[in-house]
């Protein structure tokens, strides 16, 4: 059966459900030049992206309590988060971050589809919000870009491409340095940037590689990351159900397609192909929900513009669920979403408990490693311990050590009061002498460490000869 529709000039090849549009039949890359689109969701996206990019660029410069707001200090194994300091012993809390992000993304996907992809994902934010806008500025609209790509390397092409790539390089350098400033404080990074690469070989190599990756990704790799590499997109089929809100085409309203002034009964879709022309991943949303659709809502805005022109209502392509497109009601609250919310409530409770239980200082009693676990000295049993004290507060703090048990023992502490700087750690040797006749198996050594920020009890087993 032959097709009655004319092939649009800009698209020599049409999207289908059997291939990825970005890969040609010979395996080479098919560059997609999405058309420009204006509309409600483009405006919402631009505002969101501006806020996200501003936060990303400004946060490294913000200090809370004298320390950077967000910093992962890998060599010293410290994590600074808005005034709170975590050290390596707190790393188990990271489990909550990973599981929380995972749970939340699952809930968000099951309920609202791929809103993360279209509005929050750095790939979209930087590609559509920064790099493609520069491209549009220099190379023009979709048909101009397509024409430039097919041109031989004449003066115009060399000029446009090189100026675009030059700006891309500068942007990529800014992005990679900003990324690094979440691991190296900005003032240290500033000094590193203004000094010789030989003084900071690791950071310099990282910047070289990372800038190259960012540059290559946003210049050429682009949608292939979403379509071929990212696992999140491929999870969607496991997370959706007929009540999940997705970007979709109202088949009931649009079919059968017909030209604008075609006689006879036909649907609202006039087969203008705008929805396909604006798609950055190269699909036809009228074929249904697909893995490639990143929920950017370009097709929604494009179709609404056309619907205005043919004086039909908006929403031929819109956010709705599969049930909604069939005319049934969408249930936001359903067993799946309720279960997700219940699990997230549990997670929140456990996380709050863990975070509020986070102590501002670490105190551990550890046995000193010598040849014997106890020695007998003039009728007294001696045990040697070490109190490991770490100050995790942002300022210097005084710690008082008090011996509690055994009460009949003599404690020899090198210092009963210790002043520790922020993040300073010290080992304080503690010797406990217990008269032999007072000793019985199961005796514990207990000490109390007190400070302005709270107190902690430490304990260890006192060991002696078999009786």
């Amino acid at each position, binding site marked *: *059966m032959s*097709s*009655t*529709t004319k092939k649009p000039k800009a698209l020599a090849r049409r999207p*289908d*459900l*059997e*291939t*990825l549009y970005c*890969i*040609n*039949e*010979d*395996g*080479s*890359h098919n560059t997609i030049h999405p058309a420009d689109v204006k509309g409600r969701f483009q405006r919402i996206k631009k505002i969101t992206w501006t806020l996200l990019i501003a936060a990303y660029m400004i946060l490294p410069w913000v200090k809370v309590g004298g320390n950077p707001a967000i910093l992962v200090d890998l060599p010293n194994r410290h994590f600074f988060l808005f005034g709170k300091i975590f050290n390596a012993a707190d790393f188990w809390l990271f489990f909550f971050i990973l599981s929380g992000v995972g749970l939340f993304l699952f809930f968000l996907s099951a309920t609202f589809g791929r809103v993360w992809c279209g509005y929050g994902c750095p790939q979209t934010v930087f590609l559509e919000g920064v790099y493609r806008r520069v491209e549009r500025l220099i190379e023009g609209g979709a048909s101009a870009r397509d024409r430039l790509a097919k041109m031989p390397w004449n003066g115009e092409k060399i000029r446009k491409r090189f100026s675009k790539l030059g700006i891309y390089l500068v942007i990529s350098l800014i992005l990679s340095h900003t990324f690094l400033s979440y691991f190296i404080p900005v003032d240290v990074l500033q000094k590193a940037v203004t000094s010789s690469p030989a003084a900071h070989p690791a950071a310099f190599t990282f910047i070289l590689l990372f800038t190259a990756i960012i540059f290559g990704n946003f210049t050429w790799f682009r949608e*292939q990351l979403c379509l*071929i590499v990212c696992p999140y997109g491929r999870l969607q089929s496991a997370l959706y159900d007929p009540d999940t809100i997705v970007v979709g085409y109202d*088949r009931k309203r649009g*079919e*059968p*397609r017909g030209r604008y002034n075609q006689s006879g009964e036909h649907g609202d879709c006039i*087969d203008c192909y705008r929805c396909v022309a604006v798609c950055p991943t190269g699909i036809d949303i009228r*074929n*249904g929900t697909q893995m490639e659709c990143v929920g950017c809502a370009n097709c929604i805005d494009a179709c609404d513009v056309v619907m205005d022109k043919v004086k039909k209502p908006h929403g031929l392509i819109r956010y709705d669920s599969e049930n909604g497109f069939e005319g049934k009601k969408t249930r936001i609250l359903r067993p799946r979403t309720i279960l997700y919310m219940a699990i997230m409530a549990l997670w929140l409770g456990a996380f709050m408990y863990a975070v509020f239980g986070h102590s501002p200082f670490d105190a551990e009693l550890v046995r*000193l*490693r*010598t*040849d*014997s676990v106890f*020695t007998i000295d003039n009728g007294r049993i001696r045990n*040697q311990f070490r109190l490991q004290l770490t100050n995790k507060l942002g300022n210097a703090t005084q710690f008082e050590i008090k011996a509690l048990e055994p009460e009949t023992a003599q404690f*020899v502490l*090198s*210092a009963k009061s210790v002043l520790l700087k922020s993040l300073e750690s*010290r*080992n*304080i*040797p503690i*010797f406990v002498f217990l008269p032999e006749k007072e000793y019985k198996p199961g005796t514990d050594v207990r000490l109390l460490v007190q400070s302005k920020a709270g107190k902690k009890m430490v304990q260890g087993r006192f060991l002696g000869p078999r009786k």
Partner: protein
Amino acid sequence: MTEKNIDRPNQLVDHGEEAHSFDGIQEYDNKLPNWWLWTFYLACLFSVGYWIHYHVLQTGLSSMEAYQLEMKEAKKAAEKREAKNPLTDALLLKLSKDPKIVAEGKTLFLKNGCVGCHKADAGGMIGPNLTDEYWLHGGKPTQIYHTIFNGVPLKGMPAQGKLLGRSRIQKLVAYLESIRNTHVKGGKAPQGKKEEG
């Protein structure tokens, strides 16, 4: 093969190839992206070369061999350093006359936890008094060096050698030589043999 599908009225499917269909679930055999294929081929080539180099011809160093080689070279470098500056009483005494080295040694003494047993003024509490003329394990500078390096495990003095290294222990000894025989007030009673020095 072209298919007409009621759900996709204007959609033509024509690839000239059969789709494998399993109960309606279709699987196609499209080309992988060229960059994917080529990185895969290169990885295969690399792995063959790696296998031949390390496991077949064994022209490469195994992890154990690489480690042993590095340890040998480190030992040679240490011996060269030792030969240039042999550890003698004279050297340690010379270091103790250098105020910068003595200051660094004092910082090490205070920060390293020596004060836990020997007190901040080195008068001794659990550990012996370091400011008198009585020495339990030898009072010559090289003997003091070895006491710090190897520790006295039976008595509870930890071995600092692996922790601090050669140059830091030399600085400590320099500091101790500078406070030797200063008899701080409230120091522990004498232990060991008397040695003038």
